[in-house]
């Protein structure tokens, strides 16, 4: 077993850390306040290769691997979790879905532009009445010769407002329920499509989350991603990888919260000494540091499983998504507690981290869904 990064991975991660410090962190609080996307940084990340970390070089990917990707995601998330989720969606959901299920033609057309950041992608599955249960999708794609006509409204789509490319899930065979879902790979300029409501969120406010409205969008059958009615498999397989990104995001938020707590506890003087000398604070710091470390170690193992193609990692991805997101909840809670009343104020970073953390327990599968996935696997169903 070797738990060290190689020199190349170290440079990739150092680059991510530096970018996060110089190009994300200084703007994060303001963009959170204004609910604006750091699109300039996102495009620059594409140019540098951070939006194509698991794409092969033949599609202009940087192919740095899932481990370096997870570690880079931690760095971006420490600075600005809103930008980091956009990075995660592009890498784990859009690129991976196209790479795994796309035709040669689709790969050649879409991947290089997604790799360079020229195009931003989104993955739109959720609907108002279909969250954890994809079988209840109402957006329909009706065959009409060699075309499909897509109608319906998606919501809570990450990157919705900034996306050029969409992976869209729709019912192609209503009777079959979840077995009648198909995936489509579309550009946003198709007639009849428009971006709907921009959500006003509690956290990760520097990410774009919108409705996606499809009003009788006529698209060629060649826009199908993978086979007709095989969309659920695409969604579930892709979400396995996505969970690595979200788990990394949670670890990053938790690590940032820990660092804030450490710094504050050393600076804050009460009863004539820094509060870091109080056992009550020390115990919280010890708990936080331990949990962050445990999550990080497992995260890298799951990323390594993906990178080394050493088999299915559905259970492990669900486990780390579940553990890392809930761990981040506990760590942010304690870190804010260390700050006392100041932690409740917007002037302190912990206030934002506390809000940003919350979604990690919900999106790309709630904690409860992760438990279902894990239980199913453990019980051998």
């Amino acid at each position, binding site marked *: 077993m070797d738990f060290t990064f190689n020199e190349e991975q170290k440079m990739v991660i150092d680059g991510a850390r530096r970018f996060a410090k110089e190009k994300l962190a*200084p703007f994060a609080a303001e963009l959170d306040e204004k609910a604006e996307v750091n699109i300039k940084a996102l495009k620059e990340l594409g140019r540098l290769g951070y939006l194509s970390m698991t794409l092969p070089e033949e599609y202009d990917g940087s192919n740095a691997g899932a481990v370096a990707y997870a570690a880079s995601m931690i760095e971006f998330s420490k600075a600005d979790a809103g930008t980091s989720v956009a990075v995660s969606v592009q890498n784990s959901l859009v690129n991976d879905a196209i790479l795994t299920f796309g035709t040669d033609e689709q790969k050649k057309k879409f991947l290089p532009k997604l790799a360079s950041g020229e195009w931003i992608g989104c993955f739109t599955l959720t609907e108002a009445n279909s969250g954890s249960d994809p079988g209840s999708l109402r957006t329909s794609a009706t065959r009409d010769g060699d075309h499909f006509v897509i109608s319906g409204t998606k919501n809570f789509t990450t990157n919705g407002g900034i996306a050029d490319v969409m992976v869209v899930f729709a019912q192609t065979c209503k009777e079959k329920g979840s077995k009648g879902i198909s995936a489509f790979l579309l550009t946003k300029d198709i007639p009849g499509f428009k971006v709907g409501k921009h959500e006003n969120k509690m956290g990760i406010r520097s990410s774009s989350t919108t409705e996606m409205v499809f009003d009788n969008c006529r698209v060629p059958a060649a826009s199908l991603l993978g086979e007709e009615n095989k969309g659920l498999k695409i969604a579930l397989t892709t979400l396995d990888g996505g969970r690595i990104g979200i788990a990394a995001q949670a670890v990053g938020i938790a690590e940032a919260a820990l660092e804030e707590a450490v710094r504050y506890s050393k*600076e*804050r*003087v009460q009863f004539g000494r820094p509060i870091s000398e109080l056992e009550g604070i020390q115990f919280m710091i010890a708990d936080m540091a331990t949990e962050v470390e445990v999550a990080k170690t497992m995260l890298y193992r799951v990323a390594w499983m993906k990178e080394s193609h050493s088999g299915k990692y559905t259970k492990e991805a669900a486990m780390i998504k579940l553990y890392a997101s809930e761990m981040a909840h506990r760590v942010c809670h304690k870190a804010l507690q260390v700050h006392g009343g100041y932690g409740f104020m917007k002037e302190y970073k912990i206030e934002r981290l506390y809000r940003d953390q919350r979604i990690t327990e919900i999106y790309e599968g709630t904690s409860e869904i992760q438990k279902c996935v894990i239980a199913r696997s453990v019980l051998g169903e």
Partner: protein
Amino acid sequence: MAGVLVWIETSEGKIRKVTREAASAGAKLAAAQNAPLCAVLFNGKDLLPELGNMGFSKIYAADGPAFEKYSGEAYADALAAAGEQCGADVFLTGATALGRDLSACLAAKLDAALAIDVTEIKYDAKPLTVVRPVYSGKLLADVELTADKKVISLRPNVFPVTEKPAASPEIIPLSAETAAIRAQVLKAIKAAEGVMDVAEATIIVSGGRGTGGAAGFKVIEDLAKTLGGAVGASRVAVDEGWIEYSHQVGQTGKVVSPVLYIACGISGSTQHFAGMGTSKFIIAVNTDPDAPIMEKADFAIVGDLFKVVPVLKEELLKVVK
């Protein structure tokens, strides 16, 4: 033979303060060695009367068009020639931009020991030993200068100036052969009128994140002007584009040692401290009583800089008048 040779650095026709500091340190060193203290002055005949009380026994006056503008090559050649004549083994300059340039050229030419930005000289140590900050001021290094010839640049505002009795040093015209100057100064560009450089100022008023923007520097500038000091800035303020880089104090900016450093809205990171930690007195104004600077300042004011600094300026105006 032994001796100490000092470069008289001038700026706009005036002798720089650091030159007086170097002369005083040089005098102590010469006394410890029982050796003469000499100086080299370029194109500065009218300054000669001012050099009488600095303890020099000989002043080498190098005049002519070759020395009209600074050239590391030509100046180093001249200092080496003067050193040869007076038998100097220690050469002193201020650790100013040009002093650092000249000391490097001279040390390379003489294959000498080079000590840059020295803050302490152990006058009696053998071999001669100096102290200089390293690792951005996080550590101090004791450096033994073992080569026969030693070139030392001294950090401004660190060495005390001690006047010597008035005397008439011998003036020796210096005609050094200089090669053609290949790096030619075309012109000097002055910073905006009234802008004093932090590296030389004895009082610095500095602004950081707390100034909130370029406009926030107005109160900093006003106080600096009242005190006859320079305006400094933290890295954050410079990176945000609120003020020019030339004002930056800290690890990646300028290292300063003023008598008084007033830090306004600066938290006091290790990197900032690396640039101003050797200031004689530090005043900090910050809304956060727990900011690191507040634990290191001699006088820490918990308060809003926009409220405190203008009042401080008004009251100081009365005192100054």
